[in-house]
């Protein structure tokens, strides 16, 4: 059970959270204008990063907010969490998701 830093509530147990997939996957502004490949990309294709992954969580049994996080999927350690709408934080040592 991870300990997750909610940007609103502070560090809280994973039991209060719901994982919500890769972050920064914007829904196309005009879906009907997308090509089949673009739409497939939006619907189904995810980075599935081995390493630093930008992802969404929802503090569903807390403040109920969706927020974003950078987590290393090889250790499950979080590097940062930040509110939805905020830019991805710059990581030290040039690490990149």
């Amino acid at each position, binding site marked *: 059970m991870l300990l997750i830093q909610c940007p609103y509530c502070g560090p809280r147990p994973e039991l209060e959270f719901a994982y919500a*997939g890769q972050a920064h996957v914007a829904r196309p502004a005009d879906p009907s204008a997308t090509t089949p490949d673009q739409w497939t990309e939006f619907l189904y294709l995810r980075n*599935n990063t*081995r390493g630093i992954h930008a992802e969404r969580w929802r503090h569903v049994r807390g403040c109920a907010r969706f927020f974003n996080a950078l987590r290393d999927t090889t250790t499950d350690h979080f590097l940062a969490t930040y509110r939805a709408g905020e830019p991805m934080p710059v990581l030290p040592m040039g690490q990149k998701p």
Partner: protein
Amino acid sequence: MRKFSGWTLLKEAFGGQQGWTPQWRRVAPQPEYDAIIIGGGGHGLAAAYYLASEHGITRTAVLEKGWIGGGNTGRNTTIIRSNYLFDESAALYDHALKLWEGLSQVLNYNVMFSPRGVMMLAHTVHDVQVAKRHIHANRGNGVDNEWLSPEEAKAYCPPLNIERNIRYPVLGAALQRRGGTARHDAVAWGYARAADALGVDIIENCEVTGLVRDGSGAMEAVQTSRGLIRCRRVGVSAAGNTSVVLGLAGVRLPLESFPLQALVSEPVKPVVPCVVMSGSIHAYISQSDKGELVIGAGTDAYTSYTQRGALHVNSHTLSAVCELFPAFRRMRMLRNWGGIVDVTPDRSPIIARTPVPGLYVNCGWGTGGFKATPGSGHLLAWTMARDEPHPINAPFTIERFRDGHLIDEAAAAAVAH
């Protein structure tokens, strides 16, 4: 290959077992192969074996970054069944099940395929409807599956609790008698030994770090931790790491990798005679030949490559097991571990060509690909050998996600494994 039999074993007994030779050769990679399989799990090794045995492509190498069978093949709860809902899936998994039935003899390696029956419990009216739909669809496809009343379920699996007053009583079960279990390690080793005997090079501690393409974009070579190896026909069978490997060629697939856990109890005398699965309350249990209860838990919520999972996920499964088998509260967990399963949006696999000519992929088996091992290896080999899919894997393309031809077993029933 030294043939295995009771007779050779007896002979060796008098020679202090000194006469045995390596089950597969320890070889250095050659500069070039006709075919390369990336990933020495059961699927990859089976593919190499069938490439050699059925398609005569013996200049083949299996490249494994660690030790063969150390991925999900060595981590799974070994449930084998073919009672899937959709025609495409039923054909795929039953193809595999038929191969399981003779596999020990074909490989001359006892993989301990044990058709002890897989019983899937129904706890709600909705579960019953879903189970019956499966049973009818399976029968239509020639796949055995039958409905058991709670009493019949208990007769088949005596420790099962069928009291009506429990939180989620057993309303019945779907039983596939041909389903069962097999010895996971033996599957990997048996394929490796048989493939090796046909000339396939099995190369461990060899991680693929690059996929090299020629001017036309087609596969030309693979870069590995043990050097560059030329090859124009490369199959990727890397389970949880598929996204990473295919990413080396810029191919993106609809996959996410999640930790899935399992655990075993201390060994005890025989008590669970079959496989029992409960999709709706999340318990998967069988007993191994050595006596441990083998229990499958759920996936963690988030993607990860750590090969471990959260305690609460295990607890959830064990509380379900204890509800169904109230005597097992006193049993004790001996060991817990995790594997990384690659999951597609429709929970069905992909065995197909990729957009890169000469690059093929077998992935997306998620929580349930052990049962498919012989079948998927067989079909990947076919697809690689002929550069076109076998009719059975033809529907399991990458393009189905774009075109909407999903084979959505997940939606049809919330059952894993």
